[in-house]
């Protein structure tokens, strides 16, 4: 085989790789679009009027997650499954956003922490790597941390909207999350940096609860929720 033949042959590999990346990029773009739409739907919970409509908003988001699953199904067809990490950077960002959105929907619905398995299910992917396109642990954790910061904003806006009990529930939830993260031995990577942000969220929410407590609104909230 001459050098020319050899390089022609190699070019085939390069083209194939570029085509795969091009294909992935396109699907990822549609995924990003859908993720932004879900975000738009869920962000309305910060509106004073949005509080009553949470179940409706969640249902709406759940519908859009169908689209997400279809799009991810398409994404899976674009490359051999064992090359997940070869192309990981292409979808890592959007996958973290989607993990966040899943976690946020689940929290709004049930005030509980979504598990990695649940996120995988919502997105129509696997948890464990050997079973196919999966949710990397770091990406799941990043999604959870993005949600924590959204919840600290929600605590503030709940009060503005006159809901005094939600912040207290958020506070408990976030504290539990913080303890959980303290069990992890994180490397000095982007995830660690994101985790360092969590303590600001914790503090912010504690201050909201404090404001309610000192004005006797926390008790009021409790008694309301007791009924």
């Amino acid at each position, binding site marked *: 085989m001459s050098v020319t033949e050899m390089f022609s042959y190699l070019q085939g590999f390069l083209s194939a790789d570029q085509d795969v990346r091009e294909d992935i990029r396109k699907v990822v773009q549609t995924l*990003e679009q859908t993720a*932004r*739409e879900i*975000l*738009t739907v869920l*962000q*309305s919970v*910060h*509106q004073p009027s949005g509080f009553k409509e949470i179940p409706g908003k969640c249902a709406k988001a759940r519908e859009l997650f169908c689209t997400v699953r279809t799009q991810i199904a398409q994404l899976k067809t674009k490359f051999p499954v064992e090359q997940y990490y070869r192309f990981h950077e292409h979808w890592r960002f959007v996958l973290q956003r989607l993990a966040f959105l899943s976690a946020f929907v689940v929290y709004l619905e049930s005030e509980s922490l979504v598990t990695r398995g649940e996120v995988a299910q919502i997105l129509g992917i696997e948890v464990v790597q050997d079973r196919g396109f999966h949710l990397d642990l770091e990406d799941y954790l990043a999604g959870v941390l993005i949600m924590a910061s959204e919840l600290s*904003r929600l605590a*503030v*806006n709940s*009060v*503005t909207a*006159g809901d005094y009990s939600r912040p207290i529930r958020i506070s408990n939830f976030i504290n539990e999350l913080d303890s959980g993260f303290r069990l992890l031995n994180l490397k000095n990577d982007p995830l660690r940096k994101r985790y360092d942000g969590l303590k600001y969220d914790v503090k912010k929410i504690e201050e*909201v609860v404090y*404001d*309610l407590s000192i*004005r*006797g*609104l926390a008790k009021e909230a409790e008694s309301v929720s007791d009924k």
Partner: protein
Amino acid sequence: VGQDLEARANPASAVLSVFKVFQQELDIKHDKYERLVKISRDVTIESKRTIFLLHRVTSVPDAEALLSEADTKLEAVRQKIGQIAEELRGEDIYQFHRAFTPGIQEFVEAASFLHYIRHRSLISLEEINARLVFVGSKELDNKDSAGSPEALTFQVTPSDYLLGVADLTGELMRLCISSVGNGDIDTPFQLSQFLRQIHDGFSYIGNTGPYEVSKKLHTLRQSLGKVEDACYTLRVRGSEIPKHMLADVFSSRSALVDPDEGSA
């Protein structure tokens, strides 16, 4: 000039004679670029001053007078943009875009700030562009109205518009904090609503916008947070009124509990 010396040395050189033309073409272009940079700096400064002027709106009794003063200032900026348009007459505006984009963004910021204060809404790109139509080369000179009525327009690009609006949010945040300080509790809630819409708009656009927008998103998020915090504080403290000497509050600070009388 040096080229003459060259040309004298090689009188027959075709290469030199075309490069002489190239020299002119390049110099003309660079000179134009420089002029645009200078006008853009003026636009920036005057726009910034207009924004400062507009922040005084919460502390003066006659807001209308101040707003019309802002109009006058912005009209002067508009005239400067007219000069830019004049320079760009017949040019591809993207060719010199880097020269004047900072000024135009600042103008969008100022114009949209004035518009918000007056109308409590977001000025659209079309409304901005509609104002940037200049008739004749010396529009102000009304005596010359018999001259060529050729319309000269300047088109703000969607990116510049977006970047200007992103900066507007910082000014709105400042306006919100000032309003609280001035005992106006209506404006903050209005502003938080408005800022949230802009924030949601930007997050809808996400990373499909120009790179600089993504950079400004963080600041926008912070501004929104500050405004939401301000509203939160107003609400939390408002919750205490009924329990303590309510009558007193009504008599001494009626503005606080009557949200319809905020300084619009």
